[in-house]
């Protein structure tokens, strides 16, 4: 009997023993997945079938299995080889035996769980809410209504204006021209922007133009210009057009 030809039929591997060793050495098979006890049993069973004890074969087998076990032990405790190195041989053996026994019991527990799962397969229950369950209600403590007023005041507060005092130019507020143009349009249905701002300074004209764009943006005015650089005609917006504009912006 050749040890290498011993046919194995394990969970993780099926084939001759020497192929298993090759795969383990080439790191294509995880030593942790190899059931060494099963290999030993198979070998002893084959040996028993032959009816005679071949010491050479047994010796070769012992060496190979010992190598496999060492690989497996190193794999199991790779990150802790330092710990085990500190122990003397007897202590290390004891520690290994203790951990292996612990793992075996965990495996037994896993087998118990698997069995339990099989037995409980007929227990159906609902996971998650019932179809007509009430929906969870979020409750809020009593609130002070003054908080609402405070929130309103903070929304109505003027945003902090950029300070322009360090600049030579003084810009009037846009609101000044908004008010002025709105007042103008309550008296007249249209006006000529250029003639309206003709006597103002350049910075004031620029701010007035911004105000005009604002009014156009919120739909209060309609603008017309016959040609580039021609006079800008400002008219009260048609209420219907205004609504369409708001709808588009929404």
């Amino acid at each position, binding site marked *: 009997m050749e040890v290498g030809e011993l046919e194995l039929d394990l969970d993780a591997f099926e084939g001759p023993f020497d192929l298993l060793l090759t795969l383990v050495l080439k790191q294509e098979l995880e030593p942790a997945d190899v059931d060494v006890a099963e290999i030993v049993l198979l070998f002893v069973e084959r040996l028993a079938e032959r009816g005679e004890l071949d010491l050479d074969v047994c010796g070769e087998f012992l060496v190979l299995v010992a190598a496999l076990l060492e690989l497996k032990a190193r794999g199991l405790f790779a990150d802790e080889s330092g710990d085990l190195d500190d122990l003397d041989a007897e202590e290390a053996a004891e520690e290994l035996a203790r951990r292996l026994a612990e793992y075996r019991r965990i495996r037994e527990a896993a087998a118990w769980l698997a069995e339990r799962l099989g037995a409980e397969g007929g227990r*159906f*229950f*609902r*996971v*998650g*809410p*019932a*179809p*007509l*369950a*009430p*929906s*969870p*209600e*979020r*409750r*809020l*403590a*009593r*609130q*002070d*209504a*003054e*908080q*609402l*007023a*405070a*929130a*309103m*005041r*903070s*929304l*109505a*507060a*003027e*945003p902090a204006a950029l300070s322009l005092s360090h600049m030579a130019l003084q810009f009037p507020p*846009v*609101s000044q021209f*908004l008010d002025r143009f709105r007042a103008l349009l309550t008296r007249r249905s249209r006006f000529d922007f250029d003639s309206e701002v003709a006597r103002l300074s350049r910075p004031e004209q620029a701010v007035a133009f911004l105000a005009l764009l*604002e009014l156009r*943006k*919120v739909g209060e005015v309609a603008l017309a210009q016959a040609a580039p650089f021609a006079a800008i005609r400002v008219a009260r917006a048609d209420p219907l057009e205004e*609504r*369409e504009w*708001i*709808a588009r*912006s*929404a």
Partner: protein
Amino acid sequence: MDRPLRLITSNPVDRLARTVEALLVVASQPLSVEELAAAADDDSERVETALGLLRERYREGRSGIVVEHVAGGWAFRAAREAAESCGRLFERPVERGLSAAALETLAVVAYLGPCTRPEIARLRGVAADSVVAGLLERGLIAEAGRGHDAGGAVRYRVTPLFERVFGLESLSALPRLDDLDGGEVDLRARLEAVAERRPA
């Protein structure tokens, strides 16, 4: 001819009713007669008969579990007499306060009246979607029809729960904003003007 006979002998309606009970207690959504019949491997007519038995057994006043026909099929629910207990089961711990975003949004809707999400977003200067969704879920605001504009966005109003939480008998009991321009229209215009000037 064989099948109905076998069913009648080996699977009386009583047993079928137990199977339907079991299916309904496991289901996470209502089950139609067809679904029940397919699962029980029986025919729809007999399932209807079994459901008749269950409606008798699981009804208001007799049982804490009530079988009910809703859209999509049959389902168990809690009896009305247990509504209060079920409410307590699903209660969450009381929350102490609202976020600044929630307060601002509530203030806008309370003071200015029904508003759309884009309006709220414009006045506050930030998107309002998640805040509005949160307030809807809490029941502090509710839908109040659609706006008159062409787009017809949904408008929101505050609810009676809002009034209770803030201790208001009605919206007219909201704290006065005398320091701001009086009147709703002016208030809205003022907020809009401020929003326009707010740096992006």
